[in-house]
């Protein structure tokens, strides 16, 4: 069965500092990988996705993620965090059979002034 692990439940960074959120997946075939962001009281917004090709993926709001097959990882990065980036971030893997997404448990990002 496929699974997603986000090892960090909560991360605090200073505004302007760099950010890396970790994601490890378990999936038998080539994975379809996603990062979503959820602000309080809001639904999920897609930041970026990986299906194939270039392992470094650019997304919205200045985020990027790198797929590393050897480490089964898909970590999310941002060079300079803004206060508005404070939210919950979810990594997800696609399931070709059910066309459903399997989400990790999320990482809550807090940004200090």
């Amino acid at each position, binding site marked *: 069965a496929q699974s997603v692990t986000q090892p960090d439940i909560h991360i605090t960074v200073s505004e302007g500092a760099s950010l890396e959120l970790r994601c490890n997946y378990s999936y038998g075939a080539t994975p379809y990988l996603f990062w979503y962001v959820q602000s309080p009281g809001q*639904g999920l917004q897609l930041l970026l*996705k990986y299906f194939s090709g270039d392992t470094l993926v650019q997304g919205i709001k200045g985020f990027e993620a790198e797929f590393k097959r050897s480490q089964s990882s898909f970590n999310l990065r941002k060079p300079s965090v803004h206060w508005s980036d404070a939210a919950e971030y979810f990594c997800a893997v*696609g399931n*070709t059979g059910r*066309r*459903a*997404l*399997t*989400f990790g*448990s999320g990482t809550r990002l807090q940004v200090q002034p």
Partner: protein
Amino acid sequence: DAGVTQSPTHLIKTRGQQVTLRCSPISGHKSVSWYQQVLGQGPQFIFQYYEKEERGRGNFPDRFSARQFPNYSSELNVNALLLGDSALYLCASSLSGQGQNEKLFFGSGTQLSVL
């Protein structure tokens, strides 16, 4: 253009009751998926519907059911509510639900509290 709309936004029920949640997809989208998000966890897949037919089901008991209407809106029904059903229920729409590279658009969810 309107996004995915869900109603109601909040709901309080007691154990044993039944609840119906509603979702209207983005205009032109024919696929609707439902997810349950328990506090402190990631969303869990419940159902996917396309053209009024169930195309996928997650590991949820038969108390959970759904349907999709000719206008592509959808309802999620939960019978015999348990305390553990308290969660944010998210609806997502997509054009066809056929491809893995198809973008999902999520609504803001319905917060269900079971007392």
